């Protein structure tokens, strides 16, 4: 049995997450990945924003920073620039990273700074009462979209890819073993890495849209999942409303702190 407690601030338990929330599965997958890489707890710096997923940093025994809403990525960028030897991991949600923090998200990808972003995508603002997020599917209800969301939603993995991220993977909390592998690869990758994790929010999203409890929503994730290898043989119509999982991007690109170091060395002569 894996010893999760080694990484937990046990006096802060229990977790605040609701029954049926998938965030705990992501937390555990992340801890296993970190353990596998063999990182010293003090070599890791974990930064989060505001929201349910961002509360994670309160429970784990690393160097942690719980910042303001949307600002985890710029904060983490500052940490990485000042101390490039740290493994910097950002824990954030769909609203935190792609609404209020959307600009930071794409610019960090463009810089290709060596940060790993674990993005919990639950399609809603859970903590503040079910407001619409940039990944709430069109037509679905939210407290601020009571007649159904009239807006198109983001493909947030695609966004990271287009903006220049070195590594992008998408997983779901139904498949915790692949998820652990994606996180491990993302942390090992030199460059901006994103793991988008589809995770259910039965309280603020499922209930309002009559999607059942957490278990039912996780089952639905399984049904909607199409691995990348299979998706490549399918048409756009067939892939409508599907979740394509796997390593979507894994390329070598110059990394920002490296570039910066080179610049310093050049001017030092």
């Amino acid at each position, binding site marked *: 049995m894996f010893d999760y407690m080694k990484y937990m601030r046990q006096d802060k338990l229990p977790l*605040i*997450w*609701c029954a049926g929330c998938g965030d705990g599965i992501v937390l555990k997958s992340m801890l296993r990945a970190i353990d596998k890489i063999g990182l010293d707890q003090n070599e890791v710096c974990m930064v989060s924003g505001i929201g349910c997923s961002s509360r994670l940093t309160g429970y784990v025994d690393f160097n942690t920073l719980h910042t303001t809403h949307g600002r985890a990525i710029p904060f983490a960028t500052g940490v990485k620039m000042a101390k490039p030897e740290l493994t910097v991991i950002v824990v954030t949600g769909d609203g935190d990273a792609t*609404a209020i923090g959307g600009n930071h998200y794409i610019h960090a990808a463009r810089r290709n700074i060596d940060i790993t972003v674990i993005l919990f995508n639950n399609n809603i603002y859970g903590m503040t009462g079910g407001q619409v997020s940039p990944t709430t599917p069109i037509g679905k209800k939210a407290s601020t979209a009571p007649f159904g969301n009239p807006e198109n939603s983001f493909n947030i993995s695609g966004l990271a890819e287009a903006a220049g991220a070195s590594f992008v993977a998408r997983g779901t909390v139904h498949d915790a073993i692949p998820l652990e592998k994606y996180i491990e690869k993302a942390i090992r990758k030199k460059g901006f890495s994103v793991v988008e994790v589809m995770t259910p929010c039965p309280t603020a999203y499922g209930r309002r849209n009559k999607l059942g409890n957490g278990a039912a929503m996780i089952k639905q994730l399984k049904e909607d999942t199409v691995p990348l290898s299979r998706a490549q043989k399918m048409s756009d119509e067939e892939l409508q409303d599907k979740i394509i999982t796997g390593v979507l991007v894994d390329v070598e690109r110059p990394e920002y702190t490296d570039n910066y170091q080179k610049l310093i060395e050049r001017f030092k002569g």
Partner: protein
Amino acid sequence: MNGNTTKNDDVSIVLGGAAGQGIQTVEQLLVHLFKASGYHLYATKEYMSRVRGGSNSTELRVSSKPVRAFVNRMDFLIPLDKDVLKRLNSRITDDTVIIGDKKKLLGKNGDESLDIIDIPLSDLSKEIGGAIYSNILIVGALTAIFNIDQELLHNQLQASFGAKGEDIVAKNIKAAKIGYGYGQELASTGKVKVNVTKGQKVEKQIVIDGSHAVGLGAIAGGCNFIATYPMSPSTAVLTFLAQQGERFNIIAEQTEDEIAGMNMALGASYAGARAMVTTSGGGYALMVEALSLAGAAELPLVVHLAQRPGPATGLPTRSEQGDLLFALYSGHGEFPRIIYAPGSLLDAFELSQKAFNMAEKYQVPVFLLTDQYFVDSYYNIPKIDVSKYKNENYIIKAEKGYKRYEVTENGVSPRSIPGYGPEVVIADSHEHDEEGHISEDHDNRIRMVDKRLRKQGALLTDAIPPLREGPDNAANLVVCWGSTYQIVQEAINNLGRDDVALLYFRQVYPFPSNTLDYFRNAKNVIVIENNATGQFAQMLHLFPHIEVHQNILKYNGLPFSVEEVEKELNQKLK
């Protein structure tokens, strides 16, 4: 002690439990039932920043006469778990009647000195179908104690749970009946007794909270555009206007962040919409850049700023009046503004309605400064006669030769909107000339600055004077603003002294020209504020040059209670 307790005609009931235990459902049910039964009522809540767990509570006051303020006193305490007893311990007195599941609350190591009237909620609710029915058992018991018509209760349960199916409704009604039985027994044995009288008038009144009062006022003021980013405790105004969008033609947009929200609202305003944003401190910090654009482009805008304790994320679900000076000085550059701070629900409605008209009339940003305590507090008020409130239209057609920023005597230039009339309408964030074109001419700069600042003087003609209550020659003058008003008012009434007057400011900036008159006879000026630095007292000193003798400040994240203000005043009155 609990043995034989007769309660008076103003009863405070505190319900506490973890998030997710259904306290809000109970609150909503009881608010409706008490009101429909003809009782005056007041409700406020305090809660932790989390979806599940933690420890939250709601205070309900049920009274024979109007009640509108938070009291520390707990006549009844209904804890759904042990944490509540621990957290609210300092408010429990010998007169507090505690009703709950004795076994669950006391457990193994419970405080045996606490006298708890037992209703075995866990066992009963399990029999009915699950722990969640504890709530309705409690509602049933309270309706017996307060002599509430059971048909009313059952109809309300049908309305609340009908969508979940007949089985759920039946279980809720069963729980209500069992709870009623327990309540009746308590009442008949004289263990608990209340003496609150019902009135016909209340039944026809409405019960709203601060968010709804602001939202309804916005609708009455013609608001048809809101773009904002969610932030506690301000979001309920967005949610409400989004829900009402269909009925009142309001565009409600949840943006990617507050920067976008504020700029969108300004774009809509430029195009002729009556636009608003609703936010709290941190979100407003992001909007500040765009506020300055409103100042330069002279665009009408209403900002609902629901304050919560900072700095930074602070206490997200708590209350403070800490952003007054922030609102006053926000935005780079010098430009006029109006700041309202409602202290009652009717004021919130009226000021919100007026804010839209003042924004249009003077082409300035108008602030509505509330806080968590204010937006989350409910009470009954008479129905509002909306026909009394008129909206004025200040938009004119842009005829040939129209100048958007024409220099006028009072600084207000005739405002047109794009597409209305043959001439174009120009706006620029740069300094501009009368037509709206960029200008670096220094004489023009002076003309434009002076023109904009003349509006600050002009809008004084519409200034709302402070409200003074109490004898004219009172030596003690207690000053408050915004959400503390009705708390301070009740405290002063309780003191019953003839040498104390209350002065309540609902327009906190700019100060009306005759402000000094209200202070003439005062020998001891005491300013009460829910912040740490006495921000309004600083403003009184700076603008109308009033000497403040003493401050009463609170900044632990909670509102003042009536008792606290009484105690503080007893020490500070002369």
